[in-house]
C-alpha cells in the first residue's frame, strides 16, 4: 500500500474528568447521564470510527488535601457503560480503561470476554498501571505494589487473561487451566467461551521504557500523548523498532496519540476559537492551581493576572494526589519564569502557553490535511480524538472533517467487517490450545 493511501484509524475519547473539558459552555451537558454516552458513541459510529474510548480514575483527585473542585468530576464504571452502548451501536469498537493493579485476572478476563460476546466482537481493554497508595486506599490490598512491579504484574495479567480466553476450544468445550507465576497462582475453569474476536483488543497507555517494552511485546494499540509531529515521529520509530525482538511486524501495533482539535470556517476563525477555549480551560482558579502543582505551595494570594511568584518551588511536594507529577519542578519553574519574562505574560497567560494540548486547529480542510500528513510521516497510525465538549464535541468533526478524509481515500467510508479487529486490520489471534 502506498503512503498516500495509508488508512488512518480514528477513535473518540469521551470528554470527561480533566481540564480539557469545558463545562462552563452552555452546550455542555451531563458527563454521567447515559444519553451523553449514547450521543457521542452514535456520532462516532456515524463517522465510521474504529472505537469509542473511556478513561478511568479510581480515586477522586485531591489538591492540598482536599477534593479538587474545578474540573469535571464523576464518571460511570467503564465496562458497564460499554455493555449498555453495545445495545445502541452496531460496529463501533468499545474500549475500557481498566487498571491491572487493582483487579484480578479471572474476574476481569471474564468481564471483557462477556463484553466481547455482548457486542459481537467489539471489546477492547486499555491496560493502565497506576500503582499509588493514594488510589490503593479504596481497595482491599491498599497500595501494595512497588513502582517497579507494576509492569511485571500488568504483563503477567494480560498473559493470564489470554490463557483464560484460550481455555475453551474454538468449538466451545471448556477445559481447565492452571497458571503459576510471580503474581498469580490460579486454576480452574473459565466460564465464558472463546469470544467473537478470540481475544479482546489490548491497548496500552504509558510512556516509560518499561511501558513501551510492555506495549511492544503484547499490545495491539498504544495510546500516547506524543501528539506533535516531531515527538510523534520519535515515539513511533522507537516503539515500532522494539517489535522485532518479539517476532512482531510493525503493522501489528497501532500507535494512536490522544489529540484535541478546534474547527472553524477559516483557519483564522479556528485560531480565535481555540484561544477562547483555552481561556475557558484555564480559568483564573485553574491557572493558580496549575501553578501550585509546580510550586508545591499555597499560592492562593497571588493574582492570576499578575506576574509569576519570585519564590522557588518547595521540595518534594505532595500537594497533588491522583495525578502524574510534573517532574523536576525547579527546572519547570525556571522555564516558566523565562517564558513569562520574555513575552511579558501573566500567570494565567503563562499557564495557557505552557500547558496547551491543542493539536489540530483550523478549517476542516486544514485539519484533514494535517491528520493525513501525520500518518503519512509515520507520526501516528491514527488518532484518539479528545473533544472539549460533552456530548456534542465530535459532531462537527464527523460532519465536516470525516468526509474530507474519505474523499482523500485515507479513511473508510463503510465498515468492512463486524469486529474491532477487522476495523484495525488485525488478525484474530491464533488459538493456543
Amino acid at each position, binding site marked *: 500500500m502506498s503512503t498516500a493511501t495509508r488508512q488512518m484509524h480514528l477513535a473518540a475519547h469521551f470528554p470527561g474528568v480533566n481540564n480539557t473539558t469545558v*463545562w462552563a459552555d452552555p452546550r455542555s451537558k451531563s458527563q454521567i447521564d447515559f444519553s451523553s454516552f449514547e450521543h457521542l458513541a452514535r456520532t462516532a459510529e456515524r463517522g465510521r470510527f474504529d472505537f469509542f474510548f473511556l478513561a478511568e480514575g479510581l480515586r*477522586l483527585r485531591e489538591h492540598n488535601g482536599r477534593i479538587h473542585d474545578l474540573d469535571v468530576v464523576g464518571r460511570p464504571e467503564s465496562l*458497564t457503560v460499554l455493555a*449498555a452502548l453495545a*445495545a445502541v451501536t452496531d460496529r463501533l469498537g468499545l474500549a475500557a480503561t481498566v487498571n491491572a493493579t487493582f483487579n484480578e485476572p479471572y474476574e476481569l478476563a471474564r468481564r471483557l470476554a462477556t463484553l466481547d460476546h455482548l457486542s459481537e466482537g467489539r471489546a477492547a481493554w486499555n491496560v493502565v498501571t497506576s500503582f499509588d497508595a493514594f488510589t490503593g486506599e479504596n481497595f482491599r490490598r491498599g497500595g501494595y505494589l512497588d513502582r517497579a512491579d507494576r509492569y511485571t504484574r500488568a504483563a503477567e495479567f494480560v498473559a493470564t487473561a489470554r490463557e483464560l480466553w484460550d481455555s475453551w476450544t474454538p468449538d466451545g468445550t471448556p477445559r481447565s487451566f492452571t497458571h503459576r507465576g510471580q503474581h498469580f497462582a490460579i*486454576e480452574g475453569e473459565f466460564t*465464558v467461551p472463546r469470544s467473537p474476536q478470540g481475544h479482546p483488543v489490548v491497548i496500552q497507555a504509558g510512556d516509560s521504557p518499561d511501558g513501551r517494552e510492555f506495549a511492544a511485546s503484547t499490545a495491539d494499540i498504544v495510546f500516547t500523548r506524543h501528539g506533535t509531529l516531531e515527538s510523534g515521529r520519535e515515539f513511533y520509530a522507537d516503539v515500532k523498532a522494539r517489535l522485532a525482538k518479539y517476532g512482531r511486524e510493525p503493522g501489528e501495533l497501532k500507535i494512536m496519540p490522544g489529540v484535541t482539535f478546534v474547527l472553524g470556517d477559516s483557519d483564522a476563525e479556528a485560531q480565535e476559537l481555540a484561544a477562547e477555549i483555552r481561556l475557558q480551560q484555564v480559568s483564573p482558579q485553574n491557572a493558580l492551581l496549575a501553578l501550585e502543582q509546580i510550586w508545591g505551595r499555597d499560592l492562593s494570594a497571588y493574582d492570576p493576572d499578575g506576574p509569576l511568584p519570585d519564590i522557588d518551588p518547595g521540595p518534594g511536594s505532595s500537594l497533588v494526589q491522583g495525578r502524574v507529577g510534573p517532574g523536576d519542578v525547579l527546572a519547570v519553574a525556571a522555564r516558566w519564569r523565562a517564558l513569562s519574562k520574555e513575552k511579558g505574560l501573566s500567570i494565567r497567560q503563562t499557564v495557557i502557553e505552557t500547558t496547551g494540548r491543542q493539536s489540530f486547529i483550523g478549517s476542516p480542510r486544514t485539519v484533514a490535511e494535517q491528520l493525513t500528513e501525520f500518518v503519512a510521516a509515520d507520526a501516528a497510525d491514527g488518532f484518539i480524538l479528545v473533544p472539549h465538549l460533552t456530548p456534542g464535541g465530535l459532531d462537527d468533526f464527523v460532519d465536516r472533517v470525516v468526509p474530507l478524509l474519505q474523499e482523500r481515500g485515507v479513511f473508510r467510508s463503510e465498515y468492512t467487517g463486524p469486529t474491532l479487529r477487522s476495523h484495525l486490520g488485525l488478525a484474530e489471534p491464533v488459538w493456543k490450545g
Partner: protein
Amino acid sequence: MSSTAPLHLAAEIGGPPRYDPGHYTGLARLAEHGALDFVTLGDSFARPGPDALAVLSRVAPATGRIGLVPTVTTTHTEPFHVSSAVATLDWVSRGRAGWQADVSTTGAEARLFGRRPAAPADELWREAGDSAEAGARLWDSWEDDAEIRDVATGRFIDRDKLHYIDFEGASFTVRGPAIVPRPPQGRPVIVVDGTSGPARETAARHADVVLVRATTPEQAAGARTDLRRRAAAYGRGPGALRVLVALTVDLGDAETAPEPGLESGPPLAAGGSYYRGGPVDLAELITRWHRGGAADGFHLTPITPGRDLERIVNGTVALLQHRSLFRTFYPGGTLREHLGLARPANRYAFEGGRA
C-alpha cells in the same frame, strides 16, 4: 399486612448458559410486557455463563421500565468496583438497578483468584454485609446536589457535598468517595436470598428485598415476621423490607395440573420450593398466599426460561391482572417505585455537612 397490599412479582431469566444478548433482551422484554417488578440474572464464578451485570447493562437500553437485578458476588470481588458497577447500572437504566448480593463458599472459586482460601458461609455473609454497607455509603458519598457548575467561582462541584466514607470492616477498608455520582435511585435496590441461616441476618440488616423459600404459607409468614423483627432490631422501619417467596416453577405443557400445588421437587441448584402445574393454578396459589399475608410477592424461577416465562406472563400474570390483583402498567419509572420503596435520604446530607 392487609390483603390489599400491592403484589410484587419478579422472575429469574438465567438458565442454561447463553452468550447472545438477544436471548436475554427477549426474556426481559417479555417480563416487562407483564409489568413485573424486576428480573434477576443469577451469577457465579464457578459455572459457565456470562457476567450477569454486564448482560443486564446490555439489556437496559433495550427495555424501558423493568427492574434489572444481577447477582454480584462479594467474596472475591472488590467492594469499590462492585458499588461503582451497580451505580452505573442504575445510571444506564435510569433508576432500574438492583443488586443481588451473594457469596462464594467453595474452594474451586477461591482457586480461580488465588488470593484467599475458602471460608465458612457465616463469615462470608458478614463480609457481604460489609460490602453492602460500604456500597450504600459510597452511593451516598456524593450528595444529590454536589454538582454545581458555578461559573463565578470556577467550581464544578461543591466539595463539601462529597464525603469520605472511611469504611472499616473485618476484611477490608474503603476511603471513598465514589467516582460515580449518586445514582438515580439514591441507592440501587439490594436483594438477598435470606433462606439460609447465615444470609438471613445480613438480609435483615441490609436488603430491600429478601427472597425466602417456603413450602407452606405459614412457613413464609413465619420467615417474613422473623425478618421484620430482625430488621427492626437494626433500627429499620417495618415498611423498609419486601419479602418475596422464591419459587422454582415448571409449567410443563399442561394448562392446569391434575394436582395443583407445591411439591418438593428434584434437588435444584438453589434448593427450596418447587411448583409444578399450570399457569392458572399458579395464579391461584399466588393469590391465596398473598391474600393470607404470607408474603409481599413472589420471585419465580422458570425451570425453562423461554417456555415458562411466556406462560407466567401470558397465563399467570394475565389472569392476576384480569382479577385486578396485579397492576397492568408501571405507574412509576424506577425499581424503587415499582416496589413502593422510598428513595433513601442521603446519610451525609442528613449530618448537615459535619462528615
